[in-house]
């Protein structure tokens, strides 16, 4: 499984019947704006989504993808520190690549949620 090229929300679609008209291939689709995901507009155009094809074994984070994702994450793509951030992100993501090798079959995410837990603001 290739590593997703990162982003706020990444979904895999295999049908052209998505609200965003992504082609009928398995690929990663990056959602530009989390709020938009909550209120999807029917038949959004390609301005809304962008496809990034990822080849297995390749580092998917090209500078072009990075710039797009940075913008999607609300960062200023023209900020002078983006070059440094790009290098940092590549390195940071390499640091968690090992996750892909961990066998987690049958393991649920270890999240703390207990509906019975009393809570006061």
């Amino acid at each position, binding site marked *: 499984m290739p590593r997703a090229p990162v982003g706020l929300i990444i979904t895999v679609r295999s049908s052209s019947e998505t609200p965003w008209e992504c082609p009928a291939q398995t690929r990663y689709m990056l959602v530009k704006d989390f709020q938009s995901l909550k209120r999807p507009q029917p038949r959004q155009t390609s301005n809304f989504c962008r496809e990034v094809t990822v080849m297995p074994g390749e580092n998917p984070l090209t500078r072009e993808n990075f710039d797009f994702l940075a913008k999607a994450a609300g*960062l200023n793509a023209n900020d002078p520190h983006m070059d440094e951030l790009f290098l940092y992100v590549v390195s*940071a*993501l390499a640091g968690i690549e090992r*996750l892909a090798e961990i066998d*987690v079959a049958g*393991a649920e*995410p*270890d999240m703390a949620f207990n509906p019975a837990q*009393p809570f*006061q603001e």
Partner: protein
Amino acid sequence: MDALELCYLSAGELSRLIRDKEISPVEIIDAHLARIEATEPALNSFITLLPEQAREVARRAESQIQAGNYRGPLHGVPVGLKDLFNTAGVRTTSGSRIFDNFVPAEDCTVAARFQRAGAILLGKLNMHQFAYGPTGENFDYGHMHNPWNPELVTGGSSGGSGSAAAAGQCTITMGSDTGGSVRIPAALCGIVGLKPTYGLVSRAGLTPLSWCLDHPGPMVRTVEDAALTLNAIAGYDPKDAASASGEVPNYTAALTGSVEGLRIGLPREYFEAPLDPEGETSVRTAVSQLEDMGATITEVSLPMFRDSQAISGAILMAEAAAYHRELLARDGDKLTPSVRLRLEAGLFVTAADYLKAQQARARFNREMAQLFQEVDLLAGPTEPVTAPPILASEIVIGDQTVDATGALTQYTRPYNISGTPAITVPCGFSEAGMPFGLQLAGKPFDELTVLRAAYAYEQATDWHRRRPPL
């Protein structure tokens, strides 16, 4: 008593003198304020010092004690809080000038419990910005300096807490530990640092770094003081969604001085990672001492130790970015560049990676739980090296040059993943005179056993009696 001696008394020793009215909280506070004045230019432990408030509270404590209203072992004892613990009416910066004027309306639960116990807040302690770094460097309020050698880091992120306790500026300090931020500065400054079980000490009113990895914990000079502090601050808090509701024992009852019958495991993977030979010798000697004292030592295996950086890294990056996202958008250019990079990088961790890390965490915890069926405690180094120079991004361990952040957190992060209690106690010094720490970790909510072993080791050695040359 000499004022300097007063500053190096433990909370346990001070409390007995206060209870017996042999010494006044006012004297104690004055001695500590003088100590701070003398050493602060070299250390920079504090962001906000509260001399007038502390003296006023000390006078009140003196009156209460004189009137027979002694509240217990922390009454009149000076404490310092890392500057991400909210304090009513006292600014809380989280180590960033962006919050230079942020004055919380309410105390965090830990501060409220200290107040209830009669402890006296001396000030708010310096820290790595937003607790996001293991070295104790701060470009907004100045770097923290190690009392054993001010050219070296204190460790972080609770660096001011480490230096203040080690240098006798405060009797008790508090830190928060997301990837080692209590234990790292405690080990590098030569004091005791306890990361309690997740949920035992309330996080309510602390600036989060990672909701599911953050653990507040005491940083003190003796194991007894860690137990006394835990007695005062542990316990259920409805304001913290992760707070545990179990009964809180008397932790000082664990301080028997005996390790007879304890089964201690030594994960072999800890010694396959980069580790300074002097540090390895100190830790192995300490473990041998525990064996001589009656513990059974077994070599064990924790294969997923190798995955711990990836698991905790993904969780930490994603949660820190989520918490600080609005701040990044609004004031990103006002953050320390390295902290900004770390926070922004978290925006590039996918939801799938985050959840995979949480799945892996479940596997990791299962492996850890299986180990704890064989042993009562796990032992190992707290740090692979002594304190590195300030602003060093890489450090040399043996013949390897490694990333400073990764190396400083390699032994501490596993217990943030598992949420299990872990303590560091001084276990030796390098030839250059810098301290090493022994880390002992136990089963969930079994702080009693962790404290018992740490106390027994401490009492059998004199590392904790050494003082930095200040």
